[in-house]
């Protein structure tokens, strides 16, 4: 099918975009990479009458080192993130998550801000931001807000962004020096949305887990911070016993729905298995061995 009619607005500065969103908040949608919005428009599942296209605002595309954290402009393409040595070194979980997103031609256009604003329950970035305690910067004509990831994701395709707000920047805390990270998932075909996935960042102190951050995608209406499994792992050695306790804790914490691709029970099982694999891989990369 083809999209319904719309007006195409093309701001070249953030300020201009905010004014346009203020003027048309009720009927306007932001167009970022278009890799989620345009399919929905092609099938007329979305029929915005105004699109505010951010693709000609160069100021929204950057990856900056700000000491404790990386600041990533909302329009930074997924492909630019996967090619960034800075991201790979400072925020390896973001790098690993990116490799699991779709396919190269989709990552050529898709943006980090678009993925996070879209909040698909199976998407990797929302879970990654939740695991890493990232902060979203949202702007509107009314001012600027910093929204911690834990308060940003509300449910299926739903966030706490207001209709006139634009997500402009994502601040991702850098990984501790002796940490390792891994994002693992199961999907029907590489690049498809995950049936279930888990991102882990683990810091080791000798044989024992000094810090651990875990979040899952695909197993609930939004990303899930796996606090129960984190509690099992913290200050413990990664023995088989502890790992299987963490696996069980993750499975018990999530509440997935079943669909044509996988039953609820299978997804619940996967949440545990992915947790165990992600922690093992992350710890291996931290030099903790398993």
């Amino acid at each position, binding site marked *: 099918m083809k999209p319904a009619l719309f007006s195409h607005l093309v701001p070249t500065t953030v300020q201009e975009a905010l004014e346009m969103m203020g003027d048309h908040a009720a009927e306007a949608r932001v167009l970022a990479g278009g890799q989620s919005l345009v399919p929905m428009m092609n099938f007329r599942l979305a029929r915005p009458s105004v699109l505010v296209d951010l693709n000609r605002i160069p100021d929204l595309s950057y990856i900056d080192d700000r000491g404790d954290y990386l600041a990533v402009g909302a329009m930074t393409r997924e492909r630019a993130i996967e090619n960034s040595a800075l991201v790979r070194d400072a925020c390896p979980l973001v790098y690993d998550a990116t490799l699991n997103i779709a396919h190269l031609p989709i990552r050529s*256009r898709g943006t980090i801000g678009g993925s996070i604003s879209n909040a698909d329950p199976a998407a990797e970035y929302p879970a990654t931001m939740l695991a890493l305690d990232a902060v979203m910067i949202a702007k509107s004509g009314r001012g600027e807000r910093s929204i911690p990831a834990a308060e940003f994701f509300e449910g299926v395709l739903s966030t706490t962004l207001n209709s006139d707000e634009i997500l402009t920047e994502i601040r991702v805390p850098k990984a501790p020096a002796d940490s390792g990270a891994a994002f693992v998932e199961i999907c029907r075909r590489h690049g498809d949305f995950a049936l279930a996935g888990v991102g882990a960042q683990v810091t080791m102190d000798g044989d024992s887990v000094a810090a651990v951050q875990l979040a899952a995608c695909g197993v609930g209406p939004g990303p899930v911070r796996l606090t129960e499994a984190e509690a099992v792992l913290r200050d413990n050695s990664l023995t088989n016993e502890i790992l299987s306790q963490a696996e069980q804790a993750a499975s018990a914490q999530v509440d997935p729905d079943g669909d044509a691709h996988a039953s609820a029970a299978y997804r619940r099982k996967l949440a545990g298995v992915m947790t165990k694999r992600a922690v093992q891989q992350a710890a291996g990369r931290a030099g903790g061995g398993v």
Partner: protein
Amino acid sequence: MTDRTSVTITVNGISLTGLAEPRMLLADFLRDELRLTGTHVGCEHGVCGACTVIVDGVAVRSCLMFAVQADGAEIRTIEGLATDGEMHPLQKLFAKHRALQCGFCTPGMLMTAIDLVDSTDDLTEEDIRVGMSAALCRCTGYEGIVNAVAEYAGKVHGKEGVR
């Protein structure tokens, strides 16, 4: 909304202008407005890869971009691969390895593979399988496609085959 605006893109080195409503997809602009029908349209939601073209140096889905967004861009399509009536090396390898049957997926496969090989100089067979999973083929079973892309990657990067 229904106003058609002028869109100028450089396609395969030639500057071409056409008219497009904002909602016209780049794929439809190439096919219906510029009459470059080598770019195919399958699913219109980014899944099949048949519409893949190279925009400003990177492969993208032309069904997920509006033509007006491509104004001023440089685009490579399947029509630009052959030079002086001579097939592109990757096209020859697709023939050699029987990497096509009906040919519907082939334009997207070729543009996907060219971007993949150009942007990575150290491809394993696994990388090629992952990279080419971006496009669907309902005929060949993929073996020929993977073999053709592997031989091409070896040629471009001056290596015997792939690791």
